């Protein structure tokens, strides 16, 4: 066991995989000599060289497309989007080439795309997005979103060893804020949900940065027993774990940081309304970012991102139901 930040856990998983498997190749803008915009690959070129920690041209479609080509001839590329927002520039290669390949052609595309995402630091409309729902709606892509250092490492190992394209959502706001015990060496975290805190009166379902918000918001709600379910994986979505929590708690609040409409939370709510309906004792409440670009100025950004207060309020109201 070692104590690591969320960011160190990501670096550690990448380093272990580069050491274990010569097929693993990192591709991205400024990840080599500079060590990455967030220093996730700091010092990697010294150990692994510029071939395996490749500074690519400024071309996201190129990064994803070339990674697909490398993957189908036996490499294990791990691509970094400098910010998850920029996947929009490689969206076609990701959803149409990588995502649909195995179903169409029986050809596996073992590929990971690391997507530093999320807001909370005045990144503005183009450095704060949470694009996971776009991937969830595109068949053939797996999507994971760790909330702890331990899961950041285990999910990344599992993603790199998965024979499919995996979108790895790493939340920028957690990089240095989240610390925790992480097991030594390589371990794979399954793409399933995790009960972050068991409870019986109400369950808050979240993933990524919103798990911490949910835990803080419900740490002390007039003694109510609040469960927090950390989805960890969005594709596959752990439907059993979700329906389980609903069955036990019968009241649900779903939190995600992405824009509300058609977000991951919408899918979770729809699932519960369909298959968990009988267990419900109250409306399926959602807390998410309203449908606006993420504004730059702190007072505006704070007004749109789901925070501890909004989540606490939502739980209070629902408990009173």
């Amino acid at each position, binding site marked *: 066991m070692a104590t690591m930040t969320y960011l160190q856990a990501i670096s550690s998983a990448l380093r272990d995989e580069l050491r274990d498997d010569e097929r693993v*190749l990192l591709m991205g803008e400024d990840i080599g000599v500079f060590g990455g915009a967030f220093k996730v690959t700091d010092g990697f070129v010294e150990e692994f060289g510029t*071939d*395996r920690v490749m500074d*690519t*041209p400024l*071309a996201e*479609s*190129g990064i*994803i*497309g*070339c*990674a*697909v*080509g*490398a*993957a*189908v*001839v*036996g*490499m294990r*590329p791990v691509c970094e989007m400098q910010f998850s927002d920029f996947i929009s520039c490689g969206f*076609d*290669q990701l959803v*149409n*080439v990588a995502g*649909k*390949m*195995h*179903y*169409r*052609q*029986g*050809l*596996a*595309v*073992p590929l990971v795309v690391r997507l530093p995402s999320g807001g909370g630091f005045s990144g503005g409309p183009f450095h704060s997005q949470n694009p996971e729902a776009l991937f969830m709606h595109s*068949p*053939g892509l*797996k999507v994971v979103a760790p909330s702890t250092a331990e899961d950041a490492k285990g999910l990344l190992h599992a993603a790199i060893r998965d*024979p*499919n394209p995996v979108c790895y959502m790493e939340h920028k706001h957690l990089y240095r804020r989240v610390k925790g015990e992480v097991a030594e060496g390589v371990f794979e975290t399954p793409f399933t949900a995790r009960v972050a805190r068991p409870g019986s009166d109400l369950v808050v379902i979240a993933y990524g940065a919103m798990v911490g918000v949910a835990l803080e918001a419900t740490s002390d709600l007039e003694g109510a027993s609040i469960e927090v379910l950390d989805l960890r994986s969005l594709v596959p979505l752990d439907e059993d774990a979700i329906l389980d929590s609903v069955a036990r708690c019968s009241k649900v609040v779903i939190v995600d940081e992405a824009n509300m409409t058609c977000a991951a939370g919408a899918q979770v709510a729809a699932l519960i309304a369909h298959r968990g309906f009988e267990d419900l004792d109250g409306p399926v409440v959602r807390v998410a970012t309203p449908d606006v670009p993420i504004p730059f100025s702190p007072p505006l950004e704070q007004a749109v991102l789901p925070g501890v207060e909004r989540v606490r309020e939502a739980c209070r109201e629902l408990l009173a139901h």
Partner: protein
Amino acid sequence: MATHTAEPAREGVGELEHLQPEDRIWLLRAMLLMRGIEERAMNLYRQGKVPGSFYDGYGQEAVSAGAAFAMAPEDRLCILHRDLAAHLIRGVSPARIFAQYMGRAAGITAGRDGNVHFGDRQLGCVGMVSMLPDMMLVATGMAMAFKLRGERRCALTWFGDGSTSRGDFHEAMNWAGVQKLPVVFVLENNQFAYSTPVDKQYAVDPVERAAAYGFVGVTVDGNDVEAMFEAVRAARSRAVEGGGPTLIEALTMRMHGHAAHDDMKYVPLEQVEEWRLRDPVERQEKRLRSLGVDVDAVRAAVAEEIDAAAQEALAGPMPDPADALSGVFCEGEAEALGDGQAPWSGFAGGGS
């Protein structure tokens, strides 16, 4: 591999040096098979046996036949929608191609993907996506892997004149140029993108761009299958020797509509007539006749093969609807592309 050590010595010499009589017959056979299969498939389409739409490469057979013939078993190809001969040369059987067109279980994609959207992964080919020219980046990435691993292998892809207007064309050309990758880009310039003539697509012939990306660009008569072969052979040998990418512009003409529904009345008749005189199949037949080859016998054998293949495919079942949801994800180990057939005599033991 024999070919690799042998090649440098061969550098520079003309096609006759490289093509044995059996090779030149193979090239004709590939083109005849392509034309015959597509003609038959078009009939099946008219009879409602081929769902969706139907695309062919009538008049462009030399481009895919000549280029694919220069590729080694260990090379990798991304084949486009007018390049049927390339599949045949890599070893895909005509029966499976008919089954593919008809969406039957025995088709290369078992009915999951349509008509020309296929590639046999066991034969080193990746099935194209519709978005053009996305496969240029996939080919570039394959070449990147070959170079990183120090392998003497090459990737090749085809793409059309229209698709040169898209961003992915640029990202692939630039990436391949700056990393000096072993990839061959074959620009299949058939004068039109659907109904759009090249003068609405670009102001200057795209072959001129190669130099601005730092590599060689050559123009070839895309209706001469042996010239195609030689241009790609030279480009491949440059690639595996570490000389970087090559852009080969094959000048040809789309002699049919964009797809079965298209009467192409937007194309001046003279233009079609002029190109008809340069038919690639007739040209190769003429060549071979002058060498004393019994071309009619080749034709007859091909016709027979096609009949048998069509019958076999028609007898096969449609896919089982119960299968429709399986295979979105790979469950087992990821399996990389396999080696293809490489009939050229220059490849010792490179397939049939």
